[in-house]
């Protein structure tokens, strides 16, 4: 189907974009990659009166390490992140996740900022950034605020962003030695949403777990941070028993629903298996690094 009519704005600067959002408020919607938003518009589930295309705004797509963070511009395309030598070398959870998002054509346009702002619980980036303990930078005409990723997501398609805010940057803590991470995704076919996705990030200190992050995709109304599972690992020996317990807790934290992709029990089971596998892989990397 065709989208409903709208007015199209293509600001050349961020300030212009923010002014437009101030002006049109809730009736305006930001267009980044459009790979989630335009399908919604084509189905007329979303019909904003004003579309603010931010794709021509410069300076929003870099990937660099700075001040203790990996800073990824909100407009960085999934494929750009997948191909980044920096990400491939030092941020394995992101490097494994990026090529698994949707399909190669969608990855050429879809953006990490757009994915997080869209807050689809089936969004892969949400779980990765949750596991890595990341944050987003939200700009409005009033200034800038930094939002912890776990505080960004409220429920499906709903974030804590105000109508006049745009995500400009996604940050994760800079890579530490003795750390590893990965992303596992079960999908019925390429391009499908995850049946279940699990992001894992593990940091060791003196052989014990110094930090653990687990993010879950498609098993709840939003991407889930498995905090109890994470806490069960902190400070402990990274052994099979500990991983099994964390996996069990993560599965318990999942809130999947039965649908065409599988039953509640099936999806919980996949969470458990993926968390165990993910932790094992992350541990290998951490011990090697």
């Amino acid at each position, binding site marked *: 189907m065709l989208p409903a009519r709208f007015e199209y704005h293509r600001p050349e600067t961020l300030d212009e974009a923010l002014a437009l959002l101030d002006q049109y408020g809730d009736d305006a919607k930001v267009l980044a990659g459009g790979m*989630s938003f335009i399908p919604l518009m084509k189905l007329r589930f979303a019909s904003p009166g004003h579309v603010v295309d931010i794709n021509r705004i410069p300076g929003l797509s870099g990937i660099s390490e700075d001040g203790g963070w990996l800073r990824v511009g909100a407009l960085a395309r999934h494929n750009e992140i997948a191909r980044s030598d920096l990400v491939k070398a030092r941020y394995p959870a992101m490097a494994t996740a990026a090529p698994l998002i949707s399909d190669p054509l969608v990855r050429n346009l879809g953006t990490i900022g757009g994915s997080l702002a869209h807050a689809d619980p089936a969004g892969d980036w949400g779980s990765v950034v949750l596991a890595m303990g990341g944050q987003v930078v939200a700009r409005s005409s009033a200034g800038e605020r930094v939002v912890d990723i776990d505080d960004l997501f409220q429920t499906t398609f709903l974030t804590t962003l105000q109508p006049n805010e745009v995500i400009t940057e996604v940050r994760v803590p800079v890579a530490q030695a003795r750390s590893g991470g990965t992303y596992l995704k079960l999908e019925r076919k390429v391009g499908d949403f995850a049946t279940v996705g699990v992001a894992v990030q593990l940091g060791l200190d003196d052989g014990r777990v110094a930090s653990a992050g687990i993010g879950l995709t498609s098993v709840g109304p939003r991407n889930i941070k498995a905090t109890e599972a994470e806490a069960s690992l902190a400070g402990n020996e990274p052994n099979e028993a500990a991983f099994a317990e964390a996996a069990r807790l993560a599965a318990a934290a999942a809130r999947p629903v039965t649908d065409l992709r599988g039953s509640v029990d099936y999806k919980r089971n996949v969470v458990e298996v993926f968390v165990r596998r993910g932790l094992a892989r992350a541990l290998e990397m951490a011990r090697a690094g």
Partner: protein
Amino acid sequence: MRIDSEFTVKAPIEVVWAHLLDVERIAPCMPGAQLTEVVDDHTWKGKTNIKIGPVSLSFAGTVELHERDDSAHRVVLKAQGMEQRGKGAASASVVSYLQGVDDGTKVVMETDLSISGAVAQYGRGMILDISQRMTREFAECLESNLAGASASDVSTAQAGEGALASQAPVAPVRPVRGLRLGVWAFWRAIARFVRRLFGRKEA
């Protein structure tokens, strides 16, 4: 598809029953729903506008009070609605009843819902959370009503925690004589289910 929900209010069953039948007092607790016409003493027309993030849906339809049992504190409603922009149609049968429990009254709603059209095709059943949020907001609002709070206190409570209340346009409902609990339960169930269904397909 079956949706069950319940909440407990700290008040005796007869008080809750009477209160819930007092439309004017509970109407402000219902975000997004609006009554448009009273057809007769057991049939009403209404609509509900739902906006979550970028998605907005607008359902309009008819609710019929099928059964009412004052001694059992039980109502059955039948409802049909159509999405105003061709997204689909919904029909539901809602059984709602009160139960006395230790510290008050449990309000139970059992909804049998079927949805057709685009809304159903793109439904992914991931938003049970929305119905829980709405139920929680409704219950909190109701409880403060029952505690004798004033109308302004109710709207304050509503505007506080409830992200949904602030996101969804709160349509002030014109109180209608003879309206019963079940209508609100129906619209809430519809809104709840429709909120589950706006997931479009591709990444």
